């Protein structure tokens, strides 16, 4: 393991007060710049000294990136809005409880006070082989130490692995995918908006990055349309301990319908692949179906179709299957069991 030191290596620190300033800095330094929001992922990397940078752009002073706005019945959440602010915001609680549930299960209260929504979705994977600074695929090398006959890979991927078997550790990402959120990316040259499910990258497309952010871009906001406002939501996260832990598997769903029938559903899971996965095949299969144990069972089996366990993570297959089943069944009055 890398040695965590108290003193970080020297770097030049910028704390832009405006978004324009931040964008100019990102444009100027590009790959040399380390963009920091809450710092919870960044400080680990920098103190471990497994990644170094000459320039840190700290967005904590950029007020324009913070806050929740209501837009056309939906929400626009600034990328540096803290997870606690997201959890406590009345509109999030009233209309998009799925995001509230997901954000509330991130790590611990102290971390949620500091950690941001943008940081939570953009954080790097927690694969300890990668974070130890060895030259694995994700670090630009030519091996995955987590996918060897002797590797300890209990937390790693069961789906869509391509050389690298690291997983996305975000809890809010599956919820945002289920809510059809959009990521607003801005550079000096302009703005582009990508669907939340397209924001994340698997190793098949780019083995060294986890999202589509370009070196000259910032994630400035997350837009949640009104589409699923007030729908029936389900979020569940399974982890080794009840607080301050990353998910072993998490599931998020938004659905409409009656207690007897599922009309429409969006479903996503996290921590089973390098990117949070939208389960489009399951959505199609259960839409219009009766909300029964048989439908839930079919959805669970379909969800894990093609899963390939590693040596120590075979348990993730039944875990994911059962979480999807529970998401289909729903909770409260809508629940089938």
């Amino acid at each position, binding site marked *: 393991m890398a040695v965590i030191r108290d003193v970080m290596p020297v770097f030049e620190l910028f704390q832009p007060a405006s978004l324009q300033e931040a964008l100019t800095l990102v444009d100027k330094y590009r790959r040399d710049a380390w963009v920091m929001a809450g710092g919870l992922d960044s400080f680990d990397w920098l103190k471990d000294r497994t990644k170094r940078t000459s320039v840190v752009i700290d967005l904590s002073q950029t007020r324009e990136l913070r806050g929740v706005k209501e837009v056309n019945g939906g929400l626009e959440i600034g990328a540096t809005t803290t997870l606690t602010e997201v959890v406590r915001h009345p509109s999030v609680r009233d209309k998009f409880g799925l995001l509230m549930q997901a954000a509330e299960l991130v790590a611990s209260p102290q971390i949620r006070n500091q950690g941001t929504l943008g940081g939570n979705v953009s954080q790097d994977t927690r694969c300890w082989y990668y974070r130890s600074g*060895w*030259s694995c695929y994700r670090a630009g*090398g030519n091996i995955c130490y987590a*996918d060897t*006959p002797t590797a300890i890979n209990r937390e790693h991927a069961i789906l869509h*692995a*391509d*050389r690298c078997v690291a997983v996305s550790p975000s809890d809010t990402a599956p919820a945002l995918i289920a809510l059809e959120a959009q990521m607003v990316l801005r550079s000096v040259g302009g703005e582009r908006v990508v669907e939340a499910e397209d924001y994340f990258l698997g190793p098949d*497309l*780019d083995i060294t990055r986890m999202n589509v952010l370009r070196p000259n871009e910032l994630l400035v906001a997350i837009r949640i349309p009104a589409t699923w406002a007030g729908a029936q939501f389900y979020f569940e996260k399974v982890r080794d301990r009840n607080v301050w832990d990353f998910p072993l598997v998490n599931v998020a769903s938004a659905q409409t319908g009656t207690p007897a029938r599922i009309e429409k559903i969006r479903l996503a899971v996290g921590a089973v692949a390098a990117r949070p996965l939208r389960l489009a095949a399951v959505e199609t299969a259960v839409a219009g179906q009766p909300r029964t144990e048989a439908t839930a069972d079919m959805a669970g089996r379909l969800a894990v179709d093609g899963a390939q366990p590693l040596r120590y993570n075979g348990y993730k297959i039944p875990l994911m299957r059962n979480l999807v089943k529970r998401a289909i069944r729903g909770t409260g009055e809508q629940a089938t069991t």
Partner: protein
Amino acid sequence: MNFLTWGRNPWGQTIATHVSWSLLYASLFAGLMFLVAHASYMILSAHRKRSQAETDALEAAHKDLPVHIERHSFMARAFHWVMAASMFTLLFTAFLPIIGVKFAWVRWHWIAGLVLTGAIIYHIIHATFFLDFWSIWVGPRDIPEMKAEFLRELGHDVPGPKSGKYPLGNRLYHLAILVVGLSAAITGIFMMNRVRTPLFARNPYVLTDGTWSWIYVTHGLAGVGLVGLVIAHVYFAVRPEKWWITKGMIFGWITRRQYLEHHDPQRWKVQPEKGRA
């Protein structure tokens, strides 16, 4: 410019991970510069086929030869085009992601690699047992031809030896592609131990880190080398004065006149057509 990229393994050892991808651009640049230099030179160069009078005389003396002379059998052409398709697939899947075109390339890459390897094995057997094996190799016996060709390149009208079935450039290229292509194929087969395929149980520990370093570096060097070699090959295939060779690889035959213009009938012996005299 660094030629290799280095990393650190769990035992704290420094290991070479692969060649620097700057070499890709170097190979591209070298290939393109070769094209420019050669194309410029060819504008000024003397043409190297036999003179019309000499060819007329030869044609009169070889009226018994068929009008169309088989240059490549169907199976030889099939091998060539399968190899070409797999080679392009390999190069595009290897290097497009490096230059920024992102797609899921790994599966296509190893499948194309297996096709190429199969084609190479077939070619080795076919060439050894069914073709004139030695006609493609370069050896000491080719020194007079090499000297004559060199002088012709310099614009001299040299009456000396002509090539057998394959021009000297063909044979030298074959030698280069043999070394580079086999290096890429053999190292690639080993590298399949590091990706998930139905053929190998994934195990990156079958070789030591040091050996893997050499395999990756060799594969990378062969890959970037192939970029330059393929550029040169395509360039020669489309050059107007070489088009008759390319057509031979498509249709399988060249004309009697082309045969006599460019080859030494003593070194590439063609059987006379029965009933012609």
